[in-house]
């Protein structure tokens, strides 16, 4: 698959090993074009490794990756189509935003400096001062403007808001969604805090314990999970029609966070909807070694 029909990103059993340690393992995800996706997971889950592979900066040890149907690598065609902003916004500290824009014009085949200048002017960010003198929020905006100046079709952002205060964070995400609304752009943005991203993302990739735990539209993920509360019983006898993600047993009560396989549940449970944060935390639970079964893409609701 390539061109217009290819997914924004697709990986099959992707793995990356550093020495004897697997930074990423058995990672299979598929994200259609035109989404803003949250790549979420605890520290060390493999988020940065996945983004580096997708950006063509790191070769996988096992499995396959494709971005817009192309294998990531250091070819001009591939690099033209993606934008990548690494963690901590690496910029040349003594150079100004304007210097970076001129530099980019030399290094890229496609470069829209005027849009970037317009964006920085609208945000009242001084383009002539060394970026070292700018605030963290302003530096992040400069990094985003530079990544967007390539007019990429896939934008990969590694923890862009982690170090920002709440206002700068809000402004950065507003700029990001504005860019996504502008045209043919798919965004993958990572964070260990889901809360930062819930407002702006419509797709979720959840990594934990170096593996994919969830990959799907956020509305579908919400529709597929429930909390069930009932009198204490063995989880083995809990019933059918769902997969238990997390169980909390007390002396009298059993509380389960489940992924539904079918619509009707045993009425001896009180069933309630559950928020995205609780779903994500259940998959990330520290005692969770591995998902009940490797979870595939959650499709549209039945």
């Amino acid at each position, binding site marked *: 698959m390539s061109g217009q029909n290819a997914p924004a990103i697709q990986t099959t059993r992707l793995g990356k090993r550093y020495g004897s340690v697997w930074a990423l393992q058995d990672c299979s995800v598929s994200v259609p074009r035109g989404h803003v996706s949250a790549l979420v997971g605890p520290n060390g889950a493999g988020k940065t490794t996945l983004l580096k592979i997708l950006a063509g900066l790191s070769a996988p040890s096992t499995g396959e990756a494709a971005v817009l149907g192309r294998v990531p690598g250091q070819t001009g065609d591939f690099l033209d189509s993606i934008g990548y902003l690494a963690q901590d916004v690496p910029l040349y500290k003594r150079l100004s935003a304007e210097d970076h824009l001129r530099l980019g014009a030399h290094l890229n085949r496609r470069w829209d400096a005027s849009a970037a200048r317009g964006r920085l002017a609208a945000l009242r960010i001084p383009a002539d001062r060394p970026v070292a003198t700018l605030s963290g929020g302003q530096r992040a905006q400069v990094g985003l403007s530079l990544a967007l100046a390539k007019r990429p079709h896939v934008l990969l952002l590694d923890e862009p808001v982690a170090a920002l205060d709440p206002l700068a964070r809000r402004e950065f995400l507003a700029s990001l969604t504005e860019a996504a609304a502008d045209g043919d752009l798919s965004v993958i943005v990572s964070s260990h805090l889901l809360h930062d991203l819930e407002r702006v993302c419509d797709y979720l990739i959840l990594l934990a314990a170096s593996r994919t735990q969830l990959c799907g539209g956020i509305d579908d993920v919400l529709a597929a999970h429930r909390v069930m*509360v009932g009198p204490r019983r063995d*989880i083995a006898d809990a019933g059918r029609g769902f997969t238990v993600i997390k*169980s909390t*047993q*007390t002396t009298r*009560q059993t509380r389960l966070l489940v992924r539904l396989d079918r619509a*009707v549940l045993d009425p001896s449970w009180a069933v309630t909807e559950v928020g995205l944060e*609780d779903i994500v935390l259940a998959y990330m639970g520290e005692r969770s070694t591995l998902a009940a079964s490797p979870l595939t893409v959650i499709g549209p609701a039945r």
Partner: protein
Amino acid sequence: MTIEVLKQSISFQLSPDSGVPAYLQLVQQVKQALRMGILDVGDKLPTVKEVVAEVAVNPNTVMKAYWQLEHEGLVEGRQGVGTFAVRRPAGPPPGTQLRLARRLEAWVGTARDAGLDDEAIESMLRATLSGARAENIA
């Protein structure tokens, strides 16, 4: 699967996005446990400290919830011992609810097999409820 085992009688879960104040969510969850027969009269509720440790909430929020339950006559605080369930909320016993729920489940299964979707089932239920109300008035 994550498995958590707690020594207390029941566990709580708070949804920050539900719009329901945290203390009220705790109140509702205790009432639900009483209604479902998870908690019986005489059972001890988790201590404030246990609830705080489980759901990361301010201790005053838990105390406010327990005070509200005590005010409604459902629980009783005993100095130095803890808080205990003393009465179930109004309504039929847990067995009756369960029996009715099972019959409803079977009916929903039949309706789905007949090709009704959730929206059609909900509107049928609403129509039947309002019809039953009209009959009571007549």
